[in-house]
């Protein structure tokens, strides 16, 4: 059976060059970078290189990059660390309604700790209106966190406009660029943010490593206390092989970004353009233009996403549904609901995310196997029966 991996939003495979770069650090060069001997020196040198590579990817300087253990850690660190460092000035924070749970739930934890939280809504395309951020700013607002791109809907936000507003109001601004950094151009200077999260496993780098950009001079409370690694801002023996891999992945992403984007965009457009002819009552989600190149997300009406993805899996196609992959919850994706979709439609979400190894043939295969799956599930669906009989629930 053909095996087609179309779940690059969940995680990407390692590029062979990235794996090659990591292997020595899983072997001979196993030293702890804090140590003052040859083994330590080699590890430290490798980290310095990786830090330059990551800085280069996002237009930062190397000493503005802090390595972390995951994208989630970067987000927790940024949201909690920036808020706590400034609680003397105020205890109000603003986040968008479609943030990843690692931002949303960090914000909820801050609420438990006495902060107040405002959520900014999005429009039907998942776009945050900068004016909606402005409206929520108060005297005691210390932090705004709005993601750069949503991995699920694919929508890319207007970060520079929001940054202009936070700057005018002297408020820290963090953006979660985990779904976008390494995939589309992300430049901290152009975005104008104070902090930015990214993760290796989103662009053919390893799991178990993320990075947080903190603009020079911005204070942040550590999330992990202990030794003086990362200038005392993130304690713990560094995951050198993974950091090396992240660096290499960043280098390759910088170099190949344009051609990758072209390839992914082509595959995505091919799928989305062909879809209506093959499946009726499918609702494409996310912004039509400002979206991640590899992201094809839509909802198939009258059926549920998980059963769709299980049947796709039985045909060798790996995809995800809504936020099922990260939440394993039964609830519809909070992102799609925030975009105004009904629960009924949001339950039918399915997310195809292309990677650099995918081909046209993969798209054709999906277009071949998906329609009968949809048909099979619709034949089982009481909602479809109602629609057919009474025209109920059509979108």
């Amino acid at each position: 059976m053909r095996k087609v991996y179309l779940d690059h939003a969940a995680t990407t495979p390692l590029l062979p060059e990235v794996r090659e770069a990591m292997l020595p650090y899983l072997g001979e060069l196993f030293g702890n970078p804090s140590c003052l001997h040859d083994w330590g020196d080699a590890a430290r040198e490798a980290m310095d290189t990786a830090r330059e590579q990551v800085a280069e990817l996002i237009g930062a300087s190397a000493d503005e990059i802090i390595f972390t253990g995951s994208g989630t850690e970067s987000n927790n660190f940024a949201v909690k660390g920036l808020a706590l460092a400034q609680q003397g000035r105020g205890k109000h924070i603003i986040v968008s309604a479609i943030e990843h749970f690692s931002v949303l739930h960090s914000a909820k934890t801050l609420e438990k700790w006495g902060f107040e939280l405002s959520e900014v809504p999005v429009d039907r395309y998942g776009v945050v209106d900068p004016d909606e951020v402005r409206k929520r700013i108060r005297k005691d607002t210390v932090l705004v966190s709005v993601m750069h791109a949503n991995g699920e809907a694919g929508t890319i936000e207007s970060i520079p406009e929001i940054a202009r507003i936070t700057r005018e109001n002297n408020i820290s601004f963090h953006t979660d660029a985990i779904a976008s950094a390494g995939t589309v151009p992300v430049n901290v200077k152009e975005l104008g943010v104070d902090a930015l999260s990214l993760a290796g496993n989103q662009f053919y780098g390893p799991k178990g490593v993320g990075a947080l950009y903190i603009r020079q001079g911005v204070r942040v409370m550590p999330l992990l206390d202990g030794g003086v690694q990362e200038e005392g801002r993130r304690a713990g023996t560094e995951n050198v092989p993974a950091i090396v891999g992240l660096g290499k992945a960043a280098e390759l992403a910088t170099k190949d970004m344009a051609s990758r984007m072209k390839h992914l965009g082509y595959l995505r457009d091919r799928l989305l353009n062909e879809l209506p002819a093959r499946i009726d009552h499918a609702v494409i989600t996310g912004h039509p233009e400002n979206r991640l190149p590899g992201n094809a997300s839509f909802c198939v009406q009258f059926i549920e996403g998980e059963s769709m993805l299980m049947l796709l899996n039985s045909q060798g196609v790996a995809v995800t549904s809504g936020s099922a992959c990260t939440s394993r919850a039964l609830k519809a994706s909070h992102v799609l609901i925030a975009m105004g979709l009904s629960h009924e439609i949001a339950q039918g979400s399915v997310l195809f995310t292309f990677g650099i190894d995918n081909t046209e043939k993969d798209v054709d295969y999906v277009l071949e196997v998906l329609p009968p799956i949809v048909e099979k599930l619709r034949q089982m669906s009481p909602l479809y029966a109602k629609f057919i009989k009474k025209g109920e629930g059509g979108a």
Partner: protein
Amino acid sequence: MPIYSEKVMEYFMNPRNVGEIDNPDGVGEVGNPVCGDMMTFYIKVKDKRLEDVKFKTFGCGAAIAVSSMVSEMAKGKTLDEAKKITPELVAKELDGLPKNKFHCSNLGAQALSKAIDSYLKKQAKGGKK
């Protein structure tokens, strides 16, 4: 490990008794799209036994497997016997369900029970059989 047992997968991939019954003796509907699963059970009763059971389900793999299993367990049973099919029994027959799926997806027994109730109510009101 797959989150579902082989049996769940088998009942999901090859669901038994999918469909509707024309002029059913009872119909039971449970769930809603917010919780993520909806099931409709249709029954045909003869001599206090479930002569036929069919269902339609909107929902995840577990929900479809559960419906499929319930329909199979119920078919041929007396109404009293069928009423004794519990979510726990269904899960056991399926070699277990993931913890987080137990409550929301395991509505099959309830839908069947509702269908039987609707039949009994009709009967009490002086229905045919």
